């Protein structure tokens, strides 16, 4: 199947290894991946911070870039959640009926990686090998906006060598929340302290998630503490193989 990678501005710039991992996994499963060079940002940061007029051109840009793609796949539950949850509202508020139609047509083709693999393609075992102790943090937007359900866990359970341990209070927010982490830094830090304490209590080497934004928050705190625990995107766990190691 031909798939278009919507990597997100954030992963493109800060976490390209996640993008390379998505490409590796999908190609390993026999799919053709394209990356449209015109893609930039879905507009979530502007929209959620209240800069809604600035978000509209980014929504239009997204529709222009991905309008013709058959399947759009992204390693960010948060950005896919933005498209699914807010794009229809933004289009409706713009009063542009053409945009509303284009978005209604586009949304069923935009997938978060793990739901694409498990729900659409019916794949759970992607041939991954990752001989480490890891815990999974279900990010808020994957859990409660996009509702990916147990798709990430189904994939992780099939990874060979992986010692997957439960994270206490897993469904509680890490305190990132986009600009929340800066505007309400103290509260955000209080939330992160508890999240990271739970992560450290598991004795895991890696904290896995389907959103690098939350992992950047968790990892930024763990790194400052020199905690010796690394955040890792689920795609990178899936990309790791016995022969190749981490790509």
């Amino acid at each position, binding site marked *: 199947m031909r798939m278009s990678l919507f990597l997100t*501005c954030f992963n493109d710039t800060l976490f390209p290894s996640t993008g390379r991992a998505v490409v590796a996994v999908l190609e390993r499963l026999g799919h053709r991946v394209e990356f449209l060079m015109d893609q930039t*940002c879905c507009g979530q940061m502007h929209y959620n911070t209240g*800069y809604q007029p600035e978000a509209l051109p980014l929504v239009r840009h997204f529709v222009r870039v991905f309008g013709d793609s058959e399947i759009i796949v992204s390693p960010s539950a948060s950005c896919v959640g933005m498209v699914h949850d807010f794009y229809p509202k933004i289009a409706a508020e713009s009063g542009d009926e053409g945009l509303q139609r284009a978005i209604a047509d586009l949304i069923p083709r935009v997938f978060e990686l793990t739901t694409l693999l498990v729900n659409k393609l019916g794949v759970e075992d992607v041939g991954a090998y990752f001989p480490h102790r890891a815990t999974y943090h279900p990010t*808020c937007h994957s859990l*409660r906006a996009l509702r990916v359900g147990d798709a990430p866990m189904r994939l992780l359970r099939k990874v060979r060598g992986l010692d997957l341990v439960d994270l206490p209070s897993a469904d509680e927010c890490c305190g990132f929340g986009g600009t*929340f982490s800066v505007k309400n830094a103290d*509260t955000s830090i209080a939330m992160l302290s508890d999240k990271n304490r739970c992560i450290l209590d598991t004795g895991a080497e890696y904290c896995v998630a389907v959103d690098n934004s939350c992992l950047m*928050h968790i990892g930024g705190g763990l790194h400052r503490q020199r905690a010796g625990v690394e955040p890792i995107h689920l795609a990178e766990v899936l990309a790791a193989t016995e022969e190749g190691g981490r790509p």
Partner: protein
Amino acid sequence: MSRHAPTTRAELMSRDVAPLPTNAPAQPFPEAARISLADVQLRRNMGKVTTTIRAKRAKAVAEMPDWEALREAGRAIKDRTLRHLDHYLIQLEQAVTRAGGKVHWAADAAEANRIIAGLVQSHQTKEVVKIKSLTTDELGLNEALREIGVEAFETDLAELIIQLAGERSSHILVPAIHKNRAEIRALFRRRLADTENLTDEPKALAAAARAHLRKKFLSAKVAISGANFGVAETGSICIVESEGNGRMCLTLPRVLISVMGIEKVIPSWRDLEVYLQLLPRSSTAERMNPYTSIWTGASAPGDGPEEFHLVLLDNGRTKVLADSFGRQALQCIRCSACLNVCPVYERTGGHAYNSVYPGPIGAILTPQLVGVHNAGSLPYASSLCGACYDACPVKINIPQVLVHLRGKVVEHKRESLSGRLAPEALAMKTLGKVFTSPKRFERFQKLGRLGQRLKIHNGMIESLPGQLGGWTAVRDVYPVAPETFREWWLRRSESKTSPNREGQS
């Protein structure tokens, strides 16, 4: 009212802070939160209570096979009622009047307080007993009554605790949630008679409060309550409670004054069935609350209040109603489930919101009631984690309303030149331009990589300037990658098409 913004926990908890920031901007949430976050006892108390109630609520809700259908019904009834609010309010007024009650209309807090003060004075009494009521808290009614020499006795245990402590409520349902047993015992020993040997057993604490209140129930001529629901069809008012203090107030005094926000009306008796299932499970995690009192108009002598007044309060609600998206905040039945599941509220407690309506629902209701210019920090007091929306028994999409209100805050800031030139506004404008052009985005990535060179230590950036410094206080920042994904993709595509170079994958 306090002249300066609170800097200590005691000042933040004090009743000197206005119940709603109607006249001036409230202290911003981040500042107030910083004070609360440093209170070790508060953090411990809140963590313990919210964890317990969350688990209980989840269990109580899981028992109901039709919970989702109930939620949808709860949402739909309120939504329809709000769209025809004028009709149902007039129907309610007619029904209450027919049943021998008197209906008063109050446009704002001052008018409501004037009406209630007048009614109390007409009965020549210096004391009233009260059932816990958020709406009267919103009015600052106790303070208004004190000004005319009338003392209001709170009869709900938690409400009594904070009244004795001179503090504000910090929770919709459990106003003293921020206090533990030891703190309550110390307070009672300080403020109540015959408490030298009081222990911190809940039973003993309740008994001390009961002994203190019993006399008041018997002597008070006037009782004041809020209202959980008002049934338009029959003119019946409904109060749900746990302690029985409400039942005492509703039956013993000769005069009853109930204050009801206009959004509390529901069309028919049948609709009550939906909410009496949703409310107890969501608020106290009970299948049914211990006391449900429903009355219609005035009672016959010796059978309850012979005189009944219903004060219908607007106080900003019609402004909320005018916003077709934001108005869903008026569907709220004050269960407090959103507070209990909120990771922000759990850590800051309620006082940090500087409103009688704290937590997620307060963060969307308060700015709409008083205007975003007075409570502009509240829509940002959330990580948008969505736990509140999942827990809400009437499906208020709190995260989406928060985002909607953030738009109003930014719109308001843009009205002034200083707002348009604020660093955040300029940064957002610039980034908006960057993201609309792939070329500019690529240049931006490269510029970032160049700019960060001197800042990287140990593979990470350890400090950022200005407001961004809040992040790097305890968190490192990941730098722009040595090779962005698009650079890698180009390199890979080129090596694939060029036979002379070794392929990369």
